[in-house]
């Protein structure tokens, strides 16, 4: 159906938490340098699926994961897969912004420092560059060294995006990244996504259909832990093939 080179390739993925079968035989190829959205009612497993991509899910207790997730062809759940370099490849935006307990500057410099950049000038450049690319620079350039928690929620979310970009990821994962934001901040984040999709593969979880429509190239509809339908945005929204998808889009399931 989709003939682009996949960036993330999920094969027969099953996730169990305790005795509950949360994700059921998921297979999906997420195309490179496109925006792919996961939609579906809450509790259907969107967050869980996203967390299997950067190996954050298996930090929880009682989680069993079967199947494969390939990123650039490398199996994330292989025996001797090293997780930090995989996570570095993926920026993560969570439902609420979580700035690290440090200054605005240090939030952005955190990743580069962790990965060994010590040069002051280089760090300054990186911080400025990423604050500019998330349209924060003008708003915060005079208070780079004040705590990041003093920013507004919208600014914090853009800071978290900049923090993720600073380690030069290939993929950006967003788990309902605008659900805590006001409409203006939401719009700015959406604009940023549209700018970013030339350079990054974006995977977005959202329960707002209009948002999925505005930003994504592809949509996957998930219901009760299964992928019901996956296709081009317009096709899936305007011309769904499955009855469940139709019902969801019409608002019968939520």
């Amino acid at each position, binding site marked *: 159906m989709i003939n682009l080179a996949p960036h993330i390739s999920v094969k027969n993925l099953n996730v169990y938490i305790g005795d509950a079968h949360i994700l059921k035989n998921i297979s999906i190829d997420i195309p490179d340098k496109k925006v792919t959205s996961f939609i579906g009612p809450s509790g259907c497993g969107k967050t869980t699926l996203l967390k299997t991509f950067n190996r954050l899910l298996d930090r929880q207790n009682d989680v069993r994961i079967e199947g494969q997730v390939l990123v650039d062809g490398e199996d994330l759940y292989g025996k001797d897969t090293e997780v930090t370099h995989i996570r570095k490849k993926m920026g*993560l935006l969570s439902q609420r912004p979580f700035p690290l307990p440090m200054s605005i500057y240090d939030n952005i410099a955190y990743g580069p420092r962790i990965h060994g950049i010590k040069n002051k000038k280089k760090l300054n450049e990186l911080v400025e560059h990423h604050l500019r690319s998330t349209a924060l620079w003008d708003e915060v350039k005079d208070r780079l060294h004040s705590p990041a928690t003093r920013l507004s929620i919208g600014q914090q979310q853009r800071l978290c995006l900049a923090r993720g970009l600073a*380690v030069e990821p290939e993929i950006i994962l967003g788990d309902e990244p605008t659900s805590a934001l006001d409409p203006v901040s939401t719009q700015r984040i959406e604009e940023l996504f549209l700018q970013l999709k030339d350079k990054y593969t974006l995977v977005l979880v959202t329960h707002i259909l209009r948002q999925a429509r505005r930003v994504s190239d592809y949509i996957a509809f998930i219901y009760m832990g299964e992928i019901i339908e996956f296709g081009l945005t317009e096709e899936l929204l305007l011309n769904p093939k499955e009855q469940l998808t139709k019902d969801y889009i019409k608002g019968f399931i939520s």
Partner: protein
Amino acid sequence: MNIRIVKDKAVKNIFLLLTVSSVLLVVLIFIGLYYKSVPILHSTSLSHLLFSSEWKPSKAQFGFAAFIAGTLWVTLIAIVIALPLSLLCAIYLSQYAPRRLTRFLNPLIDLLSGIPPVVYGVWGVLVVVPFIQEHVAPHFVEYSSGYSVLAGGVVLAIMIFPLIINILGEVFANVPKELSEASLSIGATQWQTIKYVLLKKSRPGIVAAVVLAISRAFGETIAVLMVCGNIPESPHSVFDSCYPLPALIANNYGEMMSVPLYDSALMFAALILFVIIFLFNAGSRIILNRLERRMN
């Protein structure tokens, strides 16, 4: 008037009353101790009481410096031993240990804090004191009976260990897991995340844990009394005996009426302890406030 609203008002006032009376109790204890200390404060100058270590009750010589030094030394040693260990232990339990292990270990740690102090004291006398006398002290000093600042510090450290672990466990559990995930998702290792995010975010909580532990350590009596040697001289090394304030009070409470001014001196000892703990808590409150303000 509606009975509901009357009840609401009554409850509110009762709670206010309870709160006020608990604060009042502290004030009353202070006043009581002060009142009882007046005779000795009249007979000896305050600076002599605090800075002299002449202790000859029968000759009406009351200098508390040795006891104050003993209290501070034992507490300091206890914290120096207990803090790093319990910090590492709490980090392991909350960040690394599989749940099967914590399920088994947490009740054990709780058990540890439920053991009566006198049991720790006996264990100190049977194990810690001889060990220090035979295996530790000979490397550093010519002679030590083993009944020493170090023995008191070790026993006290073990007693406050579960307290600090429990509080730190709570503190770490209160750090949102998304914050750690944010750090991990950038490619930080678990240890980097602990160092730069978890510990940083928890700093006020760690300070609070230490404060509580120290307050507890200041006042601990029986276990320390059993292993410190109780010699009223300022210790010159951790292998010397010492005589902390609570031990002084507990040991001499029975005979305090037989020597003039002795009862007043012991009340003054209690007052010193009270003031140390009060100042210490006030000081740490200020530090805590500052830390919290800097973080938000």
